[in-house]
């Protein structure tokens, strides 16, 4: 907590209602929310998607997305009413006094301009600094944010630097005019845990150095615990609970807040690994066509039958590529995939129908995995008709059965289109499609990463139940270690195309650790507001020790 509690509010939002136009009618999506922010304070806004977090964050700049409007309430920033200002006056404030950091830096930067040009745009336009002066400032900020080669990195284009670096460059850009308030909208959601730490510590450092107030929007409790002084929990456009971070973590009051907390605790007792393997991957080396660098280097592992094998690693570690090799969608240069003691052909086109049926995949983005023009009964009914020749009334009956199995009411959902389902429901339909094929092995590629925690928990429980009922084997690809703990019996850790660690789940989460596994494990944010500080301190100490040893 900072000692500015008595100071005047920097931002105060009173009874803010925001409505959106849905099919020609204006409906409230935020129902009268109050937000107070003192100078230098960091407020965490958390909630699931659809809670109105981003909408409120934008409203704090006096902005609403097209199709939305701020219908009621007062938004006061430094004594000025933002909701009564003209667009021109608002523009003068935005960028100079209030800044915004978006979730996807890659999508928010203009790909055609160099980073430093985009940095200098705002201060020059607001007549705060000259071009030369702001370039120098940019380099200083890049250095402070620990970007590599601060003098030259600004002269690169957005696609030439990594996602974590981009997100830091964007934070630097938000600081360009030394604003009083920055709104961070899920700045680390799209990043790996190891990169997330760099961005989090950069943001934390900047905010405390310049004593900038911030609204930090996220759905990840452990992240918000590191960043915020105070946490406000939102659900469907209403405030559920507001408390200081420490109090919120130790003693949540509202039932909804408690359920959010409970999700993180999900785990299961891993089974003893069976020595009957459904799939064996042997010494796979693979490259993408037209590229000489191997994406997979000598990858070998076994997937026990009726159990779950998790593959974890950062993005680019080759997890999904492994899945594509098993599916036969990518042909490996070397090595083989053995399914039920039989070597599979490298190309899926040359595999038999039964072999294809036995390995099914569930994709990360259910939006693109389901054909938007096919109704649910066709999506689920097709594998039945294609593999088993089940047609007509029998097909109808089986589809309804499968829908019931995945907890979707067949009377309601049977003939809907994917666009009429929520994210979690779409993922359930994907699962039903894999079940319809009666596959032995289901490859789940980041199936819960695009979902809210509560919804993701439902999907994991469903997968677990189906495994027990049908003795399914899963190859579960994920970057989230909490998910691994919740579902896996065996874990394979991948790093830069190699398997670096492989162990039963319980053993993996216990010392002695493999060095990379340890880094991965320690990077997962904990529900402790001092976790980030302690971790950075510990890592710095380790570096020092190493340096001392060298001397």
């Amino acid at each position, binding site marked *: 907590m900072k000692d500015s509690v008595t100071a005047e509010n920097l931002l105060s939002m009173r009874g803010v209602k925001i409505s959106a136009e849905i099919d020609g009618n204006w409906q409230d999506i935020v129902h009268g929310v109050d937000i107070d922010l003192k100078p230098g304070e960091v407020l965490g806004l958390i909630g699931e998607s659809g809670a109105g977090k981003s909408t409120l964050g934008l409203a704090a700049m006096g902005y609403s997305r097209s199709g939305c409007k701020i219908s009621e309430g007062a938004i006061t920033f430094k004594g000025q009413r933002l909701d009564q200002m003209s667009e021109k006056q608002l523009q003068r404030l935005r960028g100079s006094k209030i800044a915004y950091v978006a979730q996807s830096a890659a999508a928010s930067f203009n790909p055609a301009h160099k980073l430093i040009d985009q940095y200098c745009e705002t201060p020059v336009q607001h007549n705060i600094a000259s071009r030369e002066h702001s370039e120098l400032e940019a380099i200083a900020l890049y250095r402070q944010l620990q970007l590599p080669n601060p003098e030259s990195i600004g002269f690169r284009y957005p696609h030439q630097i990594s996602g974590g670096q981009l997100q830091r460059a964007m934070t630097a850009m938000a600081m360009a005019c030394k604003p009083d308030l920055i709104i961070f909208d899920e700045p680390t959601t799209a990043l790996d845990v190891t990169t997330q730490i760099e961005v989090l510590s950069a943001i934390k450092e900047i905010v405390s150095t310049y004593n900038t107030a911030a609204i930090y929007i996220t759905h990840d409790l452990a992240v918000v615990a590191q960043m915020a002084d105070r946490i406000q929990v939102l659900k469907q456009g209403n405030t559920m609970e507001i408390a200081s971070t420490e109090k919120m973590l130790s003693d949540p009051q509202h039932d909804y807040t408690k359920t959010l907390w409970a999700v993180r605790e999900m785990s299961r007792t891993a089974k003893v690994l069976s020595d009957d393997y459904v799939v064996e991957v042997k010494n796979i080396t693979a490259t993408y066509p037209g590229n000489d660098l191997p994406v997979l280097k000598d990858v070998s592992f076994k997937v026990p039958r009726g159990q779950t094998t998790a593959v974890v690693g950062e993005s680019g570690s080759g997890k999904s590529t492994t899945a594509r090799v098993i599916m036969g969608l990518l042909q490996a240069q070397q090595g083989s995939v053995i399914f039920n003691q039989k070597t599979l052909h490298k190309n*899926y086109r040359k595999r038999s129908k039964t072999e294809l049926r036995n390995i099914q995949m569930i994709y990360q983005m259910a939006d693109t995995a389901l054909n938007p023009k096919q109704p649910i009964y066709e999506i689920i009914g097709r594998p039945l008709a294609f593999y088993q020749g089940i047609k007509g009334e029998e097909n109808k009956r089986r589809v309804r059965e499968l829908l019931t199995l995945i907890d979707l009411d067949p009377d309601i959902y049977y003939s809907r289109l994917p666009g009429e389902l929520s994210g979690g429901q779409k993922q359930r339909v994907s699962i039903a499609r894999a079940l319809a094929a009666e596959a032995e092995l289901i490859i789940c590629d980041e199936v819960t990463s695009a979902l809210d925690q509560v919804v993701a928990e439902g999907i994991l429980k469903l997968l677990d139940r189906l495994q027990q009922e049908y003795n399914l084997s899963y190859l579960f690809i994920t970057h989230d270690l909490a998910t691994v703990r919740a579902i896996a019996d065996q874990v394979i850790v991948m790093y830069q195309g190699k398997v670096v660690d492989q162990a039963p789940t319980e053993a993996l989460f216990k010392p002695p650790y493999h060095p990379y596994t340890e880094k991965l494990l320690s990077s997962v944010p904990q529900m402790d507001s001092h976790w980030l500080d302690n971790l950075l301190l510990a890592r710095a100490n380790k570096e020092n020790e190493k340096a001392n040893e060298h001397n």
Partner: protein
Amino acid sequence: MKFLSLLKQAPLSAQFGVLVITLYLIVVIFAPVLAPYGEREVLDSEYLPWGGEYLLGTDNLGRDMLSRLIYGARNTVGIALVTTIIAFVGGGLLGLVAAIMGGWVDQLLSRAIDVVMAIPALIFALLILTIVGTSTTSLIFVIAVLDSTRVFRLARSVAQTVVVMDYVEAAKARGEGLWWIIRKEVLPNVSAPLIAEFGLRFCFVFLFISALSFLGLGIQPPSADWGSMVRDNATLITFGDVTPLIPAAAIALLTVAINFVVDWALHRSSGLKD
């Protein structure tokens, strides 16, 4: 019924377009009933003025202008429609195949199409029509082939964005054949731009045929068609008579009407609200 309720919410321009197209269709279907005289009958002296026995006067050979205008709708619109359909089925299908198969199939088809496209369409059409002769069938096929190159390009490029979707990969991994993937996975997702293009292409084909007819290589006399009607009666313009402009206006009106409807269809498929 569904179409009618949709039409009620449509903008005025689209309603107007649908009305005009419907009127044209009625004229095309009921031409023999509606026309007061035969298509090829020489009835009276040439270039008779409006009114009296012949509502729009007579043409350069003394045929009834109104009757020829009505039959002309049948010839011009009918041939243009058949041509566009052939161009779309051929070009569209090849475009989808090229996008789905990729690799050498795509290369072969795309480069072949590039060669055809490199030659200006009107000159190419004139050339081939002079060689193979100007029967209606050859006219249809020559224009269809030339037009299918544009359809191929569009179908290929919109299909390429769909082919990379996970659901297409899932269908391939399931073991589905090419025909299923074209028909069930890709086509429904590219139909909106293709339908919009169909409207536009139809207009172009229509204008192309009229242009060819005007040059004397299109629909051959004595069949009535709007393009050659403009040419045959063009001299009247010098005398301040607007009669030759009526078939030209018929072409223009249909083009505008179709574009209104296409705009509406595009707008609906893009999902924009305003």
